[in-house]
C-alpha cells in the first residue's frame, strides 16, 4: 500500500541524510531488510495511532535540533558501583576513556567489528527481535536504527557476569545525532546487569535487543541524562526463555523529548518480566513510555510500573499493553501508571490496554492522575517538616513503587539520591 505523500517525503528526507554502514553479508542483509521495513512503514506521523500524544517531528527531521551541553560538576551516576565502563561520546565508542572490557567476564564486541565478521552469533538477534516487534504495532524508528546504527556493543554472557557492564553516553557536541544499536545475549543460566546513563547526543536513537535464554537473568537500570534540550527515542526488545528473568528500570529527569518503547515477549514457561520507570519533569519536558508485553507461554508473570511527577506544564504519556495469547494460561499480569501533577498546567495522557485470549489469567491494570495529598502534607508539617521537605518526601514516596523494581540496593540508592537532588535543585528555584 502506498504511503501518504507527506509520510513518504518525511521518510525520504530523513534517509537522504544518512549513510548506510559497510559490513559482512549477514549485517548487510539485516540492514537491507530493515531499510525495506522503514520504506514500507514510513516514519511516524502525528496521526499514527501510537503517536497521538507525542510529536515525532523532532525525531524524524533530517537534522537534529541543537541541544546545549549541561556543565554540572556533580559526581556521575553509578560512580560507587564496581562496573566495567564503556564510554560513548556523541554516539561513538571511545576505547581510551573506557575500561578493559574483559573485566566484565563476558564477551563484549563493538558492532563495527562484529558486523565485519563473516559468521557471528549476533546474526540470530541483530534486527531480528526488532523485526518481530513491528507487529502488531509499527516502530519505524527502530527499523531505521537497525539499518543505520553506526556503533554499539554486542554482549554475550555465558555465566554470571563478574561485574555490571555500564554504558556511559557523553554528550559533547551541541548538534550530534547518534544512532546506537546494542545486542545482548544471556545464555542459559547466565546473569548480566547492564547500566546505561548519560544524555548521549543532541538527538539519540537507541535500540537494545536482548535475548534472555532459559534460566537466565538480565537486569537493566538506566538514567537518561541531565541535558534538558536533548531528544531521545529508545527501543528495548526482549525475548524471554523458560524460567528466565528480565527486569528493566529507567529514570528520566530531564529532556524536551523522550520516547521509550519496550517490547517484551515471554516465550518460555515460568518467565518473569518487569519494566518500570520513574520520571520527573519540569517545564517543556515531554516523556512517553510505550510498552507492549506479550504473554506467549504458560505461568509467566509481567509487571509494568510507571510513575511520573510533572510540574510547570510538563507532559507525560503512558501507552501500555498486555497481550495474552490463547495458550498463555496462568498468566499474572500487572500494570500501573500513575502521575503526580504538582500544578494544574502539567498533563498526563494514559492509554492502558489489555487484550486477553486465554481464560485462566490474572491481569490488573490501573492508571491514576492526582495532586499531592493535602492531608498527608499537613500531617507531615504538623510533625515539623517544612512544606517543601514534606512535599519532596511525598514525591519520593510516590515514586517508591517504581524504584523498588531495582533489585540491587546500592544501585537503587544511587537512583534515589539522584531523584532527591533533582527535587532539592527545584526547591531552591
Amino acid at each position, binding site marked *: 500500500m502506498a504511503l501518504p505523500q507527506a509520510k513518504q517525503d518525511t521518510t525520504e528526507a530523513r534517509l537522504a541524510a544518512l549513510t548506510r554502514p559497510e559490513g559482512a553479508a549477514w549485517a548487510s542483509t539485516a540492514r537491507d531488510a530493515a531499510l525495506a521495513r522503514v520504506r514500507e512503514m514510513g516514519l511516524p506521523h502525528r496521526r499514527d495511532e501510537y503517536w497521538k500524544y507525542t510529536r515525532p517531528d523532532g525525531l524524524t527531521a533530517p537534522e537534529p535540533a541543537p541541544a546545549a551541553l549541561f556543565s554540572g560538576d556533580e559526581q556521575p551516576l553509578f560512580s560507587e558501583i564496581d562496573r566495567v565502563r564503556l564510554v560513548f561520546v556523541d554516539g561513538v565508542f571511545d576505547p581510551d576513556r573506557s575500561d578493559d572490557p574483559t573485566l566484565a567476564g563476558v564477551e563484549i564486541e563493538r558492532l563495527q567489528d562484529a558486523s565485519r565478521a563473516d559468521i557471528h552469533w549476533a546474526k540470530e538477534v541483530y534486527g531480528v527481535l526488532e523485526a518481530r516487534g513491528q507487529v502488531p504495532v509499527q516502530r519505524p524508528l527502530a527499523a531505521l536504527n537497525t539499518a543505520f546504527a553506526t556503533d554499539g556493543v554486542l554482549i554475550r554472557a555465558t555465566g554470571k557476569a563478574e561485574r555490571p557492564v555500564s554504558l556511559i553516553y557523553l554528550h559533547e557536541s551541541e548538534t550530534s545525532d547518534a544512532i546506537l544499536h546494542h545486542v545482548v545475549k544471556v545464555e542459559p543460566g547466565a546473569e548480566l546487569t547492564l547500566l546505561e546513563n548519560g544524555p548521549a547526543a543532541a538527538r539519540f536513537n537507541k535500540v537494545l535487543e536482548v535475548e534472555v535464554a532459559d534460566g537466565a537473568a538480565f537486569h537493566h537500570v538506566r538514567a537518561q541524562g541531565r541535558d534538558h534540550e536533548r531528544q531521545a527515542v529508545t527501543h528495548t526488545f526482549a525475548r524471554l526463555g523458560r524460567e528466565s528473568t528480565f527486569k528493566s528500570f529507567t529514570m528520566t529527569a530531564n529532556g524536551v523529548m523522550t520516547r521509550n518503547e519496550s517490547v517484551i515477549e515471554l516465550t518460555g514457561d515460568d518467565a518473569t518480566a518487569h519494566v518500570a520507570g520513574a520520571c520527573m519533569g519540569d517545564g517543556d519536558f515531554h516523556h512517553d513510555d510505550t510498552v507492549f508485553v506479550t504473554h506467549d507461554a504458560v505461568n509467566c508473570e509481567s509487571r509494568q510500573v510507571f510513575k511520573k511527577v510533572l510540574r510547570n506544564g510538563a507532559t507525560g504519556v503512558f501507552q501500555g499493553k498486555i497481550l495474552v495469547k490463547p495458550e498463555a494460561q496462568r498468566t499474572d499480569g500487572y500494570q500501573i501508571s500513575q502521575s503526580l501533577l504538582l500544578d494544574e498546567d502539567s498533563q498526563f495522557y494514559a492509554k492502558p490496554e489489555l487484550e486477553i485470549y486465554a481464560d485462566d489469567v490474572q491481569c490488573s491494570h490501573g492508571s491514576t492522575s492526582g495532586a499531592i495529598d493535602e492531608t498527608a502534607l499537613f500531617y507531615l508539617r*504538623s*510533625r*515539623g517538616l517544612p512544606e517543601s521537605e514534606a512535599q519532596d*518526601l511525598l514525591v519520593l514516596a510516590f515514586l517508591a513503587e517504581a524504584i523498588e523494581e531495582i533489585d540491587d540496593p546500592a544501585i537503587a540508592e544511587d537512583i534515589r539520591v539522584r531523584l532527591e537532588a533533582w527535587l532539592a535543585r527545584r526547591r531552591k528555584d
Partner: protein
Amino acid sequence: MLEIKNLHVKLEEEDKQILKGVDLSVGAGEVHAIMGPNGSGKSTLSYVMSGRDGYEVTDGSIALDGADMLEMEPEERAAAGLFLAFQYPVEIPGVGNMTFLRTALNAQRKARGQEEISAADFLKLIRERAKELKIGSEMLKRPVNVGFSGGEKKRNEILQMAVLEPKMCVLDETDSGLDVDAMKLVADGVNALRSEGRSFLVITHYQRLLNHIVPDVVHIMANGKIVKTGGKELAMEVEENGYSDILDAQNETGEVV
C-alpha cells in the same frame, strides 16, 4: 503555657461559624481535659491550633509561651513545641515510619538551631520509646500508619510524641479505638512524659481515660464554646448524667447553644 482568647473560627469555604469564642488557659505542667458532644468543635480547635488549612480565624488569639501561634506555619508551631495526636492518624504509603520520625525530629532540631541527631542515637532513642509502648520493630519499618490497626495508629501517635518531646501536647480522642490494655499503655506513655515544663490538653469522650491520666482541670465544650470548667469530678458527672444537665443549666443562663 497555652493561652487561647476569644477564639472565633469559621470554615474558609462556607459561611459556617464553628468556634464561637473559646477561652482556654493551660499552665505549665498542667493536664486539662476537654469533653463535649459530637460536633461541638473539639477537633476543630486542635486543627486550628496546629495550623491546618480550611479554617479562618475571625477573631481571638492563640499563644504558646507568649508566641503568637496564628502567625506561624504548622512546622513552625511544631518546632515551637506544639504536638497534636490526631483523632484520625493519616496513612502515608511509601514513607517509612522510622524515616518519617527521624526527618521530623531533625527538622525540628534544625529549626531550633540544634544539631541533627546521629543515626545511632536516633535508633537508640526510638527503640527505647517503642519498647515502652510495645511497638515492634516490624511496625517501625512499615510505611507510616499503613496497615496499622486503629489501636496501633493511636499508639504510633504517642510514639511520635515521645520521640519529639513537645512541650504542649494535644491528644484528640487518643483513647477511642483502644482496648483496655492499650489504653493503659497509652496512659502510661503520657504519664511518663508528664513534667513541670510539659502540658497536656486531652480531648476525650470517656472518663475512663481520665482515671489513668488524671487531669487538673476539665472543660466542657458545646456548640463552639467552653461552657463549663471544673475539676476531675466534672468528668464523672458527664459520665453519669451525660451533657443535658450542663447544657440545660447553660440555657437557663441565657446562652444560646
